């Protein structure tokens, strides 16, 4: 084969790959949108589910999902920011920096079902919380931690040294430098990470399916030790009835709503990141 033909083959292969990927993307979104939109109605979003989920709507699933991830964000945010600040301002040794990187990336890669069984052992059994939505939030908070930490760290780290030096020269101590100079500038980076984490957390099924959720009869939880219904676990239950057209349609509807929420969080993160990039300082 001549060099030229090898080149052409290669280019064709690249174009084919891209088409395959693009085609897959279109297929996936097409399926979700085309099947999901007919299933959505105002009624669907505002009524409770019934009869195995094949009838009724998904109101409490939406509420449950949002509740769990918002509380998870509340729990995770301060810890993530603290860790990011520590990594960026207090850790000076190369070895420690690498170690902390390894540990945080390690946490990021842990399979979601392992988080689930961890939560089951520690919170549901040893600490005796039982099936509780709050435990679900804790576990999701742990899962979101690396994401938020990393983006916040990148933000803080990219602030030029001169800001720290000027601040110290003006007589501010370290903590004041952090809170009054560094954090305000890196806050949007932290928020970006938060929304990316939220987008990931709201779609998670495995960590919460045996520690925080119930299938029916759930409305707003009235305490910490209660389960909730969430969109992903609802879709799971419906997916197991795939030949029941009513259930399948509701599954698509729920998937569509879930994807909308995920996209909402992701685009917010994107918008914040773009705004931050255009506010370049110095």
């Amino acid at each position, binding site marked *: 084969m001549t060099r030229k033909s090898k080149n052409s083959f290669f280019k064709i292969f690249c174009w084919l790959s891209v088409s395959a990927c693009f085609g897959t993307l279109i297929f996936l979104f097409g399926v979700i949108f085309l099947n999901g939109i007919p299933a959505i109605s105002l009624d669907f979003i505002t009524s409770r589910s019934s009869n*195995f989920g094949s009838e009724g709507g998904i109101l409490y699933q939406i509420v449950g999902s949002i509740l769990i991830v918002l509380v998870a964000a509340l729990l995770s945010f301060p810890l993530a920011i603290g860790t990011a600040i520590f990594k960026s301002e207090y850790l000076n040794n190369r070895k420690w920096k690498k170690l902390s990187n390894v540990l945080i990336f390690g946490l990021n890669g842990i399979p979601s079902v392992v988080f689930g069984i961890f939560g089951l052992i520690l919170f549901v059994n040893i600490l005796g919380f039982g099936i509780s939505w709050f435990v679900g939030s804790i576990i999701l908070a742990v899962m979101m931690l690396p994401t938020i930490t990393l983006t916040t760290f990148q933000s803080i780290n990219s602030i030029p040294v001169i800001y720290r030096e000027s601040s110290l020269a003006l007589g501010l101590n370290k903590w004041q430098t952090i809170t009054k100079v560094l954090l305000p500038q890196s806050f949007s980076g932290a928020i970006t990470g938060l929304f990316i984490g939220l987008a990931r957390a709201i779609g998670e099924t495995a960590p919460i399916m045996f520690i925080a959720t119930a299938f029916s009869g759930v409305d707003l939880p009235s305490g910490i030790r209660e389960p909730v219904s969430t969109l992903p676990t609802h879709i799971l239950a419906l997916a197991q009835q795939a*030949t029941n057209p009513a259930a399948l349609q509701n599954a698509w509807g729920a998937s569509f709503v879930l994807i909308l929420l995920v996209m909402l969080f992701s685009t917010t993160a994107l918008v914040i990141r773009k705004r931050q990039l255009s506010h370049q300082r110095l």
Partner: protein
Amino acid sequence: MKLLLLTILSTIVLGCASKETINIGGSTTVLPVISNAAESYRALNPDIRIIVNAGGSGVGINQVGENKLDIGMTSRSITDTEKQKYPNVDFNVISIGRDAVVPVVSSEIYDAGITALTLQQIGDIYAGKISNWSELGGPDQDILCVDKETSRGTRHVFMKAVLGDKEAPAPGADLVLGSNNEEQTALSQSNSAIGMLSNAWLNDDVKGLNILMDDGSKIEPTLANIINGTFPITRDLLIVTNGTPTGNIKAFIEYILSDEGQRIVEQSGYVRIK
């Protein structure tokens, strides 16, 4: 954003201050009855919250044993191993209905002529001794043998009848599924499958086999045959509590056993207990 958060949190705190909750979970066979009963009961008693979960008979018994559920649903009896696991728990079993575990085949197989099999033949399929429908007089197709997770009540009852041991392994199985719903889905997606379902899940794609008895008679899986006891694989649908039920739990159980509750049992496709 903060406002949204505040609203949600306050709704939780204020909105549903103290609702009595009954936690129920377990067998997917009993689930439709309890789910529907819970919905009608809630209409009569809006202060009571009834949370229902699936998971299978094993989960139902398990969680009652660990005091995580108030009522467990099970479609089989509690095994000795389970009783030993929870020596401090007094498993109180109440029967709320009856149904049959029916060996089911894909509609194409049924239409091709296989409408009745002996329990022995069915057992042989699951034991791996028969693997093609032609060996039973049907079309030349591999049998897709659909099994269930080992703790499921439906499986216990089925295996006891066809293989003699409720915990028998099934070397001939090709697929292992969970709930009645999932099994029904897989059976309708295939055209040469055999599986086990509660009689309430039979439909056009999933046909119940008649059981060929030793004397040559064919018993159909109809409600009449369940009531008069001639269908060989029948069972009670049970709910389990830890000790004698009291208060709200007792009231709900009495509702299920009442005429209205038993009507719900029948509407779900089962046989009432009284």
